[in-house]
């Protein structure tokens, strides 16, 4: 029993490392620095400066916070989506389908290594926000901030798995990822507070990952008590988990479809 558990952990770790190493297209020093470290800086910079120019410093701080979180999503989602896309493009996913390998383990292993990248992207993004729009962290409880950021990162990594499977099924990474990133920017409260949305759109926005996490960050930013925000944070986690399950169902569906048709394309 213990041996089987140990083997399972070893296999999961290997799969996590190998899918990351082999299927993450930006894992070269140029691509990594550009996407994980510089891109969040550029995105935060762009919207902080537009906010400062068009509205004012206070609003620009909110934009910067939102864009730092979106920077996390961009790198996590794109990294995971690539692991599915290149697996199908290069045809290596067929080797999974002919083995008895644990599908859940393979599915979950694709997201793990992208989580640290998401957090790194947030750190560079929020550092830029501090430099450009002077976000004040003095009264922030760092423990709570780290907890909230971790929950959002986990939730969006789980959502990234869902998008990854969508990319696997449609065989289109660039457009699916681009469209998802754009939709998330508009609907999750990154820039436009979701309270301004009409009823149905507001409810839809609450079903997306990142929305509830961003609300928690916003409330913390306004000085709210953390004890009042547990519910929202839990909802963020549940939302991510729901997408993770939906993604797995899609993954299984894809394998079944490939087995029935006998082809990947």
């Amino acid at each position, binding site marked *: 029993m213990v041996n089987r558990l140990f083997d399972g952990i070893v296999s999961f770790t290997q799969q996590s490392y190998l899918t990351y190493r082999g299927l993450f297209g930006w894992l070269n020093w140029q691509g990594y620095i550009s996407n994980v470290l510089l891109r969040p800086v550029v995105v935060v910079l762009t919207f902080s400066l537009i906010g400062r120019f068009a509205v004012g410093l206070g609003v620009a701080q909110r934009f910067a916070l939102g864009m730092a979180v979106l920077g996390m999503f961009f790198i996590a989602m794109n990294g995971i989506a690539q692991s599915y896309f290149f697996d199908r493009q290069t045809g290596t996913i067929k080797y999974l389908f002919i083995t008895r390998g644990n599908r859940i383990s393979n599915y979950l292993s694709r997201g793990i290594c992208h989580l640290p990248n998401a957090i790194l992207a947030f750190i560079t993004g929020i550092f830029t926000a501090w430099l450009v729009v002077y976000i004040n962290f003095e009264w922030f409880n760092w423990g709570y901030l780290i907890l909230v950021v971790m929950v959002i990162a986990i939730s969006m990594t789980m959502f990234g798995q869902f998008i990854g499977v969508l990319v696997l099924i449609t065989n289109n990474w660039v457009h699916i990822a681009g469209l998802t990133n754009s939709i998330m920017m*508009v609907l999750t409260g990154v820039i436009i507070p979701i309270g301004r949305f009409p009823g149905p759109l507001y409810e839809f926005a609450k079903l997306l990952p990142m929305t509830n996490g961003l609300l928690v960050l916003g409330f913390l930013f306004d000085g709210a008590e953390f004890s009042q925000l547990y519910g929202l944070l839990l909802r963020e986690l549940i939302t991510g988990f729901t997408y993770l399950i939906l993604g797995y169902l899609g993954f299984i569906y894809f394998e079944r479809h490939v087995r029935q048709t006998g082809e990947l394309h």
Partner: protein
Amino acid sequence: MNNLCAIYAAFRQRWKLEMSSKINLFDLILVIPTAIILAWIVRQRGDQDIITYVIIGAFFSAIWRGVVFQIGWSINTESANGTLESSIVCRTPLIMLIFGKSLAVFLYKSRSGLIASIVILLLAGKPPAVDNIPLLLLSLIFVVISIALTSLLFAPLFVLVRGKGGFWNAIIPFGAILSCFLIPIIHLPQGLAIASRFIPASWAMESVWFSITGKTWWEIMRSWGMCILTTFFILGASYIMFSIVEKRVRATGSLGIN
């Protein structure tokens, strides 16, 4: 004259290529969310000068990404398709041919820019207001020329830097900040503003801002003058880099990129 004919031919070739590809709806749709966000931001204060600037800037910002990316990869793509040899052996300098192509891509990508501007125009809540329309139109010509010429810099740069997957994802949007499409140079932090002064589009966009807000002829002409000066600087740098790439191809018979 011969060079003009070659530029026109390169323009037509690229234009046909763009038009023959399937209309990529995603390219058009993808600009809409960002435009919605920009419209919401400018709506907050409702300043007509800012609304006007962002409507114009969103148009050029959408084009910038497309033109720089497409022109940046143009030499590599031609090399992969086997058409680069014909461009190298003809008498027209490669830089002229790429300029013709960049104009075609600019025109093609202007559809995305137009959609972005229309979305902002519809959602901004107030109509745009311009203090001096003739000067604005002249300033827009400077922006178009500066984008088309600056994009030339990226064609040899993509070959020489040999950026691997995803390398340009941060560089191209940073170029949009420095070009001041959405934020006038006077509103940039000092460090960025200094770097921005070397980019022709930032001067051209400054003249756009001055035309909207009603600055004097003299100030606008100063911006145009600096735009021309920096354009020569960028063209010089592009010419040197194109020469290096051409020399490499002629000496080694390959770009060393495949």
